[in-house]
């Protein structure tokens, strides 16, 4: 028997495979396909204090080995989540994390405060990739100071585990990771999407309504691996790796460079059962290489 269990701070996961925010809905959409309780955890879609309509259509463009999205955090707000979605999540026998976003520090704080009261939610994932409306629209996660500021403010009101999701659209991601660690983040997850663009040459127009959008899928994996490796050397808190993971081998690569757990994003669209296959694939890999615990492979590549 191989032990797949892993701790992310004080969060105990039955296995290191979670699903990435915005790619797994509220989880329940996958119940036709497999029992999602078999996963280490699920991270539900980006939730904000207020209802958001998101960006106009078109919001998606397929690109070589990847896709761009410009969903713009469409969601019905944290109150709607609590009253209409949360009750149906209680029966899921794995950790459910809420991905929290905001345009101001106050919005993050108020949303986190409300989620703190929900027994079934053991942690939040703070999405600091959102533009800071008060500081000219620059992403909170693109400077150490503003990243630290969000985490510090949320830490004061949120008593459970905080996973901070880092933006890759920075020069030195390790510095940002250190900044959020210093303010009390329990773990970091990386990477969020890379800023990109797609153009329709025939129409001579950008494909997305927002012109630019977030790149995800297999094409981002080399960048994500590099960033996880860099952050692993810079912080002591656990790292959750993601970006372009399509199969168990990809997931293992992230663990070898220092991730304690992984998240599966875009791959869910292509094979809705892929995350379960990755759990089984990691187990098979550990057996084949005679490891007794998944912890044994974390950070083998220094």
């Amino acid at each position, binding site marked *: 028997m191989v032990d797949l269990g892993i701790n992310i701070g004080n969060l105990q996961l039955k296995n290191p495979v979670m699903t990435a925010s915005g790619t797994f809905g509220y989880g329940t959409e996958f119940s036709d*396909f497999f029992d999602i309780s078999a996963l280490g955890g699920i991270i539900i879609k980006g939730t904000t204090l207020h209802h958001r309509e998101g960006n106009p259509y078109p919001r998606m463009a397929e690109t070589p080995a990847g*896709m761009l999205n410009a969903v713009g955090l469409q969601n019905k707000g944290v109150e709607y989540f609590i009253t209409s979605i949360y009750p149906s999540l209680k029966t899921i026998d794995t950790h459910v994390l809420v991905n929290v976003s905001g345009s101001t520090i106050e919005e993050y704080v108020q949303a986190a405060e409300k989620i703190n009261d929900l027994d079934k939610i053991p942690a939040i994932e703070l999405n600091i990739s959102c533009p800071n409306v008060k500081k000219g629209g620059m992403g909170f996660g693109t400077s150490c100071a503003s990243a630290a500021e969000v985490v510090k403010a949320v830490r004061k009101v949120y008593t459970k585990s905080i996973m901070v999701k880092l933006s890759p659209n920075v020069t030195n991601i390790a510095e940002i990771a250190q900044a959020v660690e210093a303010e009390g983040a329990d773990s970091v997850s990386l990477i969020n999407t890379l800023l990109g663009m797609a153009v329709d040459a025939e129409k001579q127009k950008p494909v997305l309504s927002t012109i630019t959008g977030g790149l995800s899928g297999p094409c981002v994996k080399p960048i994500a691996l590099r960033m996880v490796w860099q952050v692993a050397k810079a912080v002591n808190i656990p790292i959750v790796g993601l970006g372009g993971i399509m199969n168990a081998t990809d997931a293992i690569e992230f663990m070898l460079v220092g991730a304690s757990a992984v998240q599966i994003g*875009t791959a869910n*669209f292509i094979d809705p059962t892929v995350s379960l296959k990755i759990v089984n694939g990691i187990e098979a890999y550990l057996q084949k290489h005679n490891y007794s615990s998944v912890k044994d492979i974390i950070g083998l590549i220094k």
Partner: protein
Amino acid sequence: MKKYILDCVVVANIPLNKRYFLLRVSHPSPFPRMLPGQFVELRVDNSSDVLLRRPISIHDMNYETNEMDLLVQIVGAGTLKMSELKKGDLLNMIAPLGNSFSMPTIDMKHVLLVGGGVGVAPLLLLGRVLQQYSCKVSFLLGARTASDLVQLDSFSQYGEVYLTTEDATVGEKGFVTNHSLLKNKVFDKIYTCGPTPMMKAISAYAKTNNIECEVSLENTMACGFGVCLCCVTDTTEGHKCVCTEGPVFNLTTLKW
């Protein structure tokens, strides 16, 4: 409706013209019930060349032979790869997806199904199902040129077929909205699928003449089952997912 991930087997792949082909697939166990207007998400191959699945309407179902027909137009890499599938090849799909056309009410005597280009695809299964209703069914199908009007024998099994082509090679010249059939406004309901400008023109006709109208949208999709929120259309109740709350929308809910 419960969604299934199915490994289908290609029974036949029939070229209909240079760009259109009919893909007939089967499955080892009986297909679940599929409704007219619903679609499937096809995994084209296992390369990251065509990374995402491709949404394709259910063109026809034969539950006796357990076969599903898909009518596909080659527009890019994914549909080109589909056109190369051979008898015996596996084709992975998620199905059935989306809502469906709603059935006519008992007082409806004559319904019109308007299709343009490959948008005619879902109208065949709709025509088949409408047979169970007492209303008269007419098809108004348009394309650029005669060879792009496909499956006409199949359509004519279920109703009268009226045609338009832009180059006047068959039927009346012009777009479907110019067809003389539309001058007698006897229809109780219109169903339409095709290029957006065509559907908008038909919608305007339906509005002016106070005819109930359902349109089937083909927004670009990443998942097809309601989790990515990429496929939205603007409605009177805000953004709605075309893949789960559509692809069929009653005209009154769209901001057209």
